[in-house]
């Protein structure tokens, strides 16, 4: 095969696998930012915090990072409901979301990052399971398990979320609270409780994404910086409240970023993220897969 074509194919495949990780990170945000209209700037920081928890627990107990990620999700769910409780009590109820609420999440993000620096130090940490060094070769195309396993976990988590949102009463209520909280109240459902649960789920997803991140790359407390632009760009491109839109946008994003990195060098990939974000905001603010407002 022509080396450029092979390079391109490999770039696309590993871009799709990378997209799986991005989908995990962005799906939680699609719930909090997209459906609940809560601009959780701290989402990627929570993901990195989840990653550190995975390394800590996984190393101590000798467990697989992806397994730990799933096991710790309920703890992060509770953390998320706690954060939402504070947010709702101090900001949402008072109508102060725009300025003070944003500053609140920025402060939370900063507290998490500096807290991680104080606990673990600023250097990179990693936890490599055995399969991280295995690569399947399908003809000319390399499929590293380091990328495949987290992507599969991400798809499973998103699939479960999708089933929950479309099949269960609570899930439908979450979709409804995004559209009309007052109507929900008329049906004797407390919108604040529904939102609290939804926000907890979004933080739990951040923790699962953190486990996936640990398998893919070493992390340090400031790893979340580059993800902020990415996940918000994906979420906006995906049309905000749409889970399937976010997943498709994540795959597209992963491919574009990875092909750029293959041909122009990896140091330019954050610039791709920002370029896309600006382009989407300027040209199609309702997202690639969203409907016009």
């Amino acid at each position, binding site marked *: 095969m022509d080396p450029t074509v092979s390079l391109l194919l490999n770039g696309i495949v590993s871009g799709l696998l990378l997209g799986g990780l991005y989908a995990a990170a962005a799906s939680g945000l699609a719930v909090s930012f997209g459906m609940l209209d809560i*601009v959780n*700037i701290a989402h990627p920081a929570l993901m990195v915090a989840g990653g550190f928890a995975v390394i800590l627990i996984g190393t101590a107990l000798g467990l697989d990072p992806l397994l730990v990620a799933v096991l710790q999700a309920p703890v992060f769910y509770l953390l998320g409901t706690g954060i939402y409780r504070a947010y709702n009590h101090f900001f949402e109820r008072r109508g102060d979301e725009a300025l003070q609420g944003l500053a*609140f999440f920025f402060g939370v993000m900063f507290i998490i990052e500096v807290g991680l620096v104080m606990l673990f130090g600023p250097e990179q940490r990693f936890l490599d399971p055995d399969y991280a060094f295995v690569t399947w070769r399908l003809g000319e195309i390399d499929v590293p398990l380091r990328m495949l396993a987290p992507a599969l976990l991400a798809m499973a988590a998103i699939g479960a979320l999708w089933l929950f949102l479309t099949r269960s009463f609570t899930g439908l209520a979450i979709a409804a609270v995004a559209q009309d909280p007052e109507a929900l109240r008329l049906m004797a459902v407390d919108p604040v409780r529904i939102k609290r649960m939804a926000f907890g789920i979004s933080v739990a997803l951040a923790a699962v994404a953190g486990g996936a991140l640990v398998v893919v790359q070493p992390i340090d407390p400031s790893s979340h910086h580059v993800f902020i632009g990415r996940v918000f760009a994906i979420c906006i491109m995906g049309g905000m409240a749409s889970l399937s839109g976010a997943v498709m946008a994540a795959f597209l994003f992963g491919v574009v970023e990875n092909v750029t990195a293959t041909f122009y060098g990896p140091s330019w990939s954050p610039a791709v993220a920002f370029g896309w974000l600006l382009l989407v905001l300027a040209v199609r*603010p309702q997202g690639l897969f969203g409907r016009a407002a």
Partner: protein
Amino acid sequence: MSATTLPAPAMPTARLHLSYWLGAGALAVALILLLRLIGNEYGWYAGYFVLQYVVLAAAWNILGGYAGYVNFGAAGFMATGSYTTIVLYEALGLGVIPGILGAAVVAGLLGLGTGYLTLRLRGVYFSIATLSLSVVLQTIVVNWDYVGGSRGAYIIRPMEVPPFASYGEYIFVVMLVLAVIAVGIGRTVEFSRLGRGLQAIRDNERAAEAVGVPTLRLKLIATTLSGALMGVAGAPLPFYAGYLNPEGAFNLAYAVNAIAMPLIGGAGTWLGPVIGAVLLATLQQAATVTISSALNLWIVGWMLVIFVALFPRGILGWFRRR
């Protein structure tokens, strides 16, 4: 905006403005004399640290405080200023004053561009865009060998500048003048039609638009002005430190302080950012000397969260309500 919708400011404002400039000038001279009396080089160093935050907080307040648009990328704008100074120094051997002017132009244009692309949408998009802008600018600087890349850039600062006893004193006085100007600009904005228009945008953008406030134009003026002043806040930094690397210039601490200081002091008032900056920066300077720098940043984060939760109008707002 016609004269019937927003009456022109009443006459005494001119006198109020004069009294601000005279008062601030007198305060500045008194501060210099006091620090000369103490006669310790550290005094200039610590004073600069506090004053750069006064400029940064006043700059953030113009957009964030009056119009309610949150800029998360203060570090990016500030670093744009710092690196403009470095480029002018490397290319033309220019000193600190031309660096400040250049920084104002470059950072102002950056603010205008970001604002133009995102301000037609909801405010949160602007916030997210500024945050990722900061990350991308850092990527560019790290990859840019001319300004030292990730190794950083050195500036050989002059030993002394004639009327001043030391270079430390000189750079302090430069920052002091900038702080007086920045706060003065914030104050002028507050009492002008621009400020009233911005406040109308913050309170209800649609209603403001409906009564004929040119919202987009006012927001663009505010982002440009705010961005330019943030660049100015960072411009003398390479001369102050003698060395600058991307990690230091784009430090998230600048971004969090730029938000925390006006909100803690009282956003949307000209005095609030000054109070917040003096309070928080002095606290951090004291904490850096006595305890670890990570812990003092952590304290700033907690103060921000606690203040916005319990005192959403800041220290000034709390006093005014009583």
